[in-house]
């Protein structure tokens, strides 16, 4: 090793010449790349489960009372449980692990030019706790009473009393699983922030850090600052469920709205916690495939920080009709509308990045572009929901559901695919097939829109959420509305089928994909300096030194249209 970066100071008892067994190399590894993969594959597996649940309950909605293939008859309790766990899994066990834990773990040391995280054993522990949390959640489906069915928001008294929720084991297990998952991410967050602050390559100043790393760091800080109240509420709810305390029982001096506040105080920053890494990933991909510098890097960074600060002030927009003081509703409406401004700034900056660029429509780029379009729809519909007046009508309807799927789907699914298609060569040393990628892309995006646009219409027509059979409601049982439900369900099945090309592409490319060199996309950031795939220690030829920012494309002083961060040369003064 030619040079020693600061991360090495942290684990100076690390040996490079030890014999590694299968277990120490792949299961109990402290290597950030392996841990990243562990998170990624667990997240993808959980996504399959969450997607399966969505298939089952949508089939129930489209063909109520019929037996669902590969499941059976869906009882009301089963429906509630499916809906609850679909939401819980997708947020906590898919979006967060893949976008933050997997991408963060894999990319951070590579992109900042060091050999591993500063707390590698804490990193391993965080995955182990995460895996335990996933096991607890899945186990909750098989206990008497089944999995928890009180919605992912778990409002008491439904969630607190077994006499209401009929899942005396499932409910506490759900809570324990969520709490464990939170602890895992806290440990991860500590690792990410400390590594980025302390272990950067020589010469990498604050504004040379790739935007995706900043986004993951800011997301981690948001997460850590906002999750305390949820853990407090979860502990109180767990005691209500198991010990018979009455924290949320109004008849005994408690307050159910207290849970709502504690939950949403975390719940709102949480959506930005998942949004920021996805936006960062999209920014990286767009710069590389537009061959253009990120427009207004600093403005994006400051907008993100403003977004983070504002996100602590908007939580009660989830509670407009729960009985909170309407004067407070004025405040929260205002802040909610304000918070759309930083996001809009960021989206406009991305569009400005594309303007005048030389765009290459690779699969990763197609997904990144679709992120912009779909997220825009989600964001705009959020403005309607953020106004307390309109929200009185739209709260708890499918309009809300369509809104948050138009934001969450780009974040969790499109963001994941963008990242995988882009960094697959670095992760595994081979490229994924572009043709199948494009088939996957178009199939996914078109069917996604076909699922959720009908749901906007249904929601505006008054269809409430969390009802297992709309035939029981005369106003909602009309043939035209039911047709839309069937259409949405069929589109879902089509979308799920279109994920098969992706899975096959992924697995086959692992072994037979076109071999990728270090920098197949001709990008500038430091992860493309390491070999594909990077070995243990990441940079066998010594740690890189950084001389400029991460997005120097099409620089007038260069013949090539890109200028890697670690290549010395004319150091132009930064403007």
């Amino acid at each position, binding site marked *: 090793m030619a*040079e*020693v*970066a*600061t991360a090495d*100071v*942290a684990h100076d008892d690390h040996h490079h010449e030890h014999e590694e067994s299968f277990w120490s190399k792949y299961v109990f590894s402290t290597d950030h790349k392996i841990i990243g993969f562990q998170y990624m594959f667990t997240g993808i597996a959980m996504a399959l489960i969450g997607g399966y649940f969505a298939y089952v309950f949508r089939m129930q909605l489209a063909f109520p009372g019929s037996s669902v293939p590969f499941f059976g008859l869906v009882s009301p309790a089963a429906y509630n449980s499916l809906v609850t766990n679909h939401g819980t899994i997708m947020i906590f066990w898919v979006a967060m692990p893949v976008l933050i834990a997997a991408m963060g773990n894999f990319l951070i040391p590579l992109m900042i030019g060091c050999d591993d995280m*500063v*707390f590698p054993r*804490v990193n391993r522990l965080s995955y182990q706790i995460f895996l335990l949390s996933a096991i607890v959640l899945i186990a909750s489906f098989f206990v008497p009473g089944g999995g928890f069915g009180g919605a992912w928001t778990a409002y008491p008294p439904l969630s607190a009393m077994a006499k209401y929720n009929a899942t005396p084991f499932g409910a506490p297990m759900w809570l324990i699983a969520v709490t464990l998952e939170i602890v895992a991410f*806290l440990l991860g*967050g*500590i*690792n990410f*922030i*400390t590594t980025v*602050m*302390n*272990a*950067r*390559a*020589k*010469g*990498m*100043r*604050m*504004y040379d850090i790739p935007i995706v790393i900043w986004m993951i760091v800011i997301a981690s*800080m948001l997460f*850590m*600052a*906002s*999750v*305390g*109240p949820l*853990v*407090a*509420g979860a*502990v*109180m709810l767990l*005691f209500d469920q198991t*010990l*018979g*305390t*009455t*924290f949320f029982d109004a008849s*005994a*001096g*408690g*307050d159910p709205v*207290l849970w709502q506040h*504690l939950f949403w*105080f975390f719940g709102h920053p949480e959506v930005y916690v998942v949004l920021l890494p996805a936006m960062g990933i999209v920014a990286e991909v767009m710069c590389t495939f537009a061959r253009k510098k990120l427009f207004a890097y600093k403005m994006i960074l400051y907008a993100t920080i403003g977004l983070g600060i504002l996100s602590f002030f908007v939580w009660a927009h989830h509670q407009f009709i729960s009985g909170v003081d309407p004067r407070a509703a004025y405040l929260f409406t205002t802040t909610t509308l304000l918070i759309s401004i930083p996001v809009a700034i960021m989206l406009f900056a991305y569009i400005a990045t594309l303007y005048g660029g030389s765009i290459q429509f690779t699969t990763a780029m197609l997904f990144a572009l679709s992120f912009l379009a779909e997220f825009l729809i989600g964001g705009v519909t959020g403005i309607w929901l953020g106004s307390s007046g309109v929200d009185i009508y739209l709260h708890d309807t499918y309009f809300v559901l369509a809104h948050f799927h138009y934001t969450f789907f780009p974040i969790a699914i499109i963001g994941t695919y963008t990242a995988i298609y882009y960094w697959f060569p670095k992760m595994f040393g081979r490229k994924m097939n572009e043709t199948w990628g494009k088939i996957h892309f178009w199939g996914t995006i078109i069917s996604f829109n076909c699922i959720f646009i009908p749901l906007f219409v249904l929601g505006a027509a008054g269809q409430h959420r969390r009802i297992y059979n709309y035939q029981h409601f005369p106003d909602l049982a009309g043939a035209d509305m039911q047709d839309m439900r069937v259409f949405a369900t069929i589109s879902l099945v089509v979308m799920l089928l279109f994920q098969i090309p992706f899975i096959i592409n992924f697995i086959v490319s692992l072994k037979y994909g076109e071999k990728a060199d270090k920098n197949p996309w001709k990008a500038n950031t430091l992860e493309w300096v390491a070999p594909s795939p990077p070995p243990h220690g990441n940079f066998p030829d010594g740690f890189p030194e950084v001389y400029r920012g991460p997005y120097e494309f099409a620089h007038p002083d260069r013949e090539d249209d890109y200028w890697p961060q670690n290549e010395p040369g004319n150091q132009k003064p930064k403007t």
Partner: protein
Amino acid sequence: MRYAEASYSGEGALKRQPPIANSVLGMILFIMTELMFFAALVSAFLIIKSSVEAWPPEGQPRLPVFVTAINSVFLLSSAVTLFLANRSFRQDAYGDPTLKLLKATLYLGILFVAIQGFEWARLISYGLTMTSSQYGAFFYLIIGTHALHAIGAIIGLVWLYRLMKERRLKQQTFSAGQIFWYFVVGLWPILYVLVYLT
């Protein structure tokens, strides 16, 4: 805003130590999360307390304010001994005074937890439990969470003591452990005033 020169010292040589050591920065971030957790518990407590007519409610045993005040003095003194231990560590890392001060901190902490536990046993026997009233529920929740953190801090100190005896305790590790101890100690007066005195 000046750029942060992450890896260069004034003379341009490669700086090996970051301005805030890894363990210290990590611990600060952890404390931040814990502080939010306690703030939420305290918030829930204040809200429920203000919605109930009588506080403390009828028929519930009163909390041992005086004994706990003495106990608090023990805990606060443990922070002082730890601070002195750090000063001693900087001068003579593995010397006798350092070890003694660290042991004193440990004993004071264990004494605090033990007396608390004893008082709890008494309260339970008098009928104050988690389910007897909101008063009891919040008392055990908040003070119990603090006690768990105190026990965690004690375990951490034991581990630091072992490292010190084996002469391989790094300053940053010691600082990180101290920060957690000061957090547990510093939080206690706030909880004492809110839970015991009002």
